[in-house]
């Protein structure tokens, strides 16, 4: 054995200089490659830090000049010196709430169908089709909302007002179609594919033996799903919901189209018009003339950024918990 090694060493002895050169080259290449990848991986984190810094820096003027005033002022009307964020915050949360109320049950029902009720091939076809909703650009959702959903709502809203529901106050005001309601509906359709996809994946990770045990006890499919699978997948589904929530909160274009751009007051009902943080930024940026206007808009962006960050982090925590529970890495 030893002699063979010596032989090999001897054989390569002739090109010793060449070997040494190559080796030193490798010594550099591997760490260099490693550092390149580390740097690229860190780029995301650096971008995140830079983003936070830039947002804070650029809204500093507004923060110092306006203090906490925007947080307890309703109207956004820079021309009269009113930089209220409440109208935007209110619209953001209400449209997101409507979106979640519609999208979460829909997504869970679809996920149940995809995992438990249909043939795998059909499940794949339906699943992919619904996933494709996520690929549609938000501007197209906005156009479709304005040109298709709004005319339908203009017919449906008077009818709702004539039913007992109309007396609730939620549906008061002129039924012009544009407003909080269509924005919420379109947002629901936009987050539906995200919540569906994640819910389907986590429901699919419920161990077969646990489900079989559930069926073996004489449960119906719904009972197994509701009492066992959903519980098993609970953290994953929570993650999916927060993921969708984060998306809905920050969505811009579709909402900018549909909310109606009323910046100076809170909406009175679901049929009323309003704004959201991102819609205010998108629609008011062009009108922002003074540095303070721009700074205040970027401060709105900072607020939106912080809110979505919180929801994204919560989503990540839940999803990590789901992963730990099922022991998968994906």
């Amino acid at each position, binding site marked *: 054995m030893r002699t063979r090694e010596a032989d090999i060493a001897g054989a390569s002895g002739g090109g010793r200089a060449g070997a040494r050169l190559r080796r030193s080259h*490798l010594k550099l*290449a*591997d760490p260099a490659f*490693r550092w390149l*990848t*580390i740097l*690229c*991986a*860190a*780029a*995301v*984190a650096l971008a*995140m830090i*830079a*983003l936070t810094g*830039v*947002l804070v*820096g650029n809204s500093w003027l507004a923060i110092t000049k306006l203090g906490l005033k925007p947080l307890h002022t309703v109207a956004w009307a820079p021309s009269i010196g009113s930089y209220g964020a409440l109208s935007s915050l209110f619209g953001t949360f209400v449209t997101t709430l409507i979106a979640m109320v519609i999208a979460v049950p829909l997504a869970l*029902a*679809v996920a149940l*169908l*995809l995992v438990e*009720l249909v043939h795998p091939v059909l499940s794949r076809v*339906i699943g992919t*089709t*619904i996933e*494709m*909703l996520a690929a*549609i*650009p*938000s*501007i*197209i959702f906005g*156009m*479709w909302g304005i*040109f*298709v959903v709004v005319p339908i709502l203009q017919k449906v809203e008077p009818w709702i007002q004539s039913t007992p529901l109309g007396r609730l106050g939620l549906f008061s005001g002129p039924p012009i179609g544009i407003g909080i309601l269509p924005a919420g509906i379109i947002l629901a359709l936009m987050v*539906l594919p995200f919540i*569906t996809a994640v819910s389907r994946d986590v429901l699919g990770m419920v161990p077969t033996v646990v489900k079989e045990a559930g069926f073996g006890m004489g449960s*119906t*499919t*719904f*009972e197994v799903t509701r009492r066992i699978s959903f519980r098993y997948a609970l953290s994953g589904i929570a993650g999916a919901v927060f*993921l969708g929530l984060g*998306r809905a909160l*920050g969505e*811009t*274009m579709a909402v900018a*189209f549909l909310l109606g751009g009323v910046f100076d007051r809170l909406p009175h009902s679901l049929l009323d018009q309003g704004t959201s943080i*991102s819609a205010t930024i*998108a629609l008011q940026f062009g009108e922002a003339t003074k540095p303070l206007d721009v700074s205040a*808009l970027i401060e709105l962006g900072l607020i939106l*950024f912080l809110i*979505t*960050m919180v929801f*994204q982090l919560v*989503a*990540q925590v839940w999803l*990590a918990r789901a992963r730990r529970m099922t022991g998968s*890495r994906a």
Partner: protein
Amino acid sequence: MSADTMPGPLSAVPLRPRSVARRRVVDRLVTSLAWLAAAFGVFIMGWIVVTVVGRGIGAINWAFFTQSPPAGADLGGGLGPCIVGTIVLTGFAAVIGIPIGFFGAVYLSEFGRTGRIATAIRTITNVVLGVPSIIAGLFAYAILVKPLHHYSGFAGSVALAFIMLPVMTRAAEDVLNLVPNELRESALAMGAPRWRATLGVIVRSARAGLITSTILAVVRVAGETAPLLFTALSSPYWLNGLFGPSGFFGGPVANLTKTIYDYSTSPYQHLQQLAWGGALVIIVAVLGTNVLVRLVFQRGK
């Protein structure tokens, strides 16, 4: 416990069975609702596509691709500069975002794995994935538009790259993680240095998936509007050179999405028509690529 208590229930209370029929009805009801929900989702998808195709197809002709947008309320014209602009903006974003995303994914899947740094970066990447696209636009505005006092296509591309980067990283990492460990080990056991094993063997074996990830990441941002609102803005002119007022670095760059936004909210019928035509181009490009890539990739599996 004694043996004679074994048979039958212990409790004196007799068991009153619940109605099986009712449980079954609930089950059927939920099943039907699930079908309805899925049908609704598929229906909406179809409805959107049909609407865009139906309204946009009339705008599509040779002039649509070759001519500039009409001035003012004039008739005719096309979105030629916008299509070129969107391709350039997206392409330049890819030049920035794809390599960084790719090497970042290599770090996560090959070096970092389950380490603490990699886990942290993975979490941050996931979070950045959820940053609203309008925030990316504000970011690019603040670092590239405000200091230079003019809008630019470059700023738009940076904003788009910011969105593309985490998409690429996560997708590419998922693909690289599918490479079997044996392949990794056998490449290293051959004495290959890490970088050669990675680029030559691991990346090559994951080639199909990486191409898919790249295409999907690029296409993902092609339809974005919000990041361009305060960066590339838009313009009715053809992109011309680099640093001039119509250049990539020098001024606003025409693009489809912002133009669609402006035209679809305009009162003029023919501008709305152009907007639908633009929407059709985007939806064909984005959905078409998604479907095509899935078909090719799944066949490859």
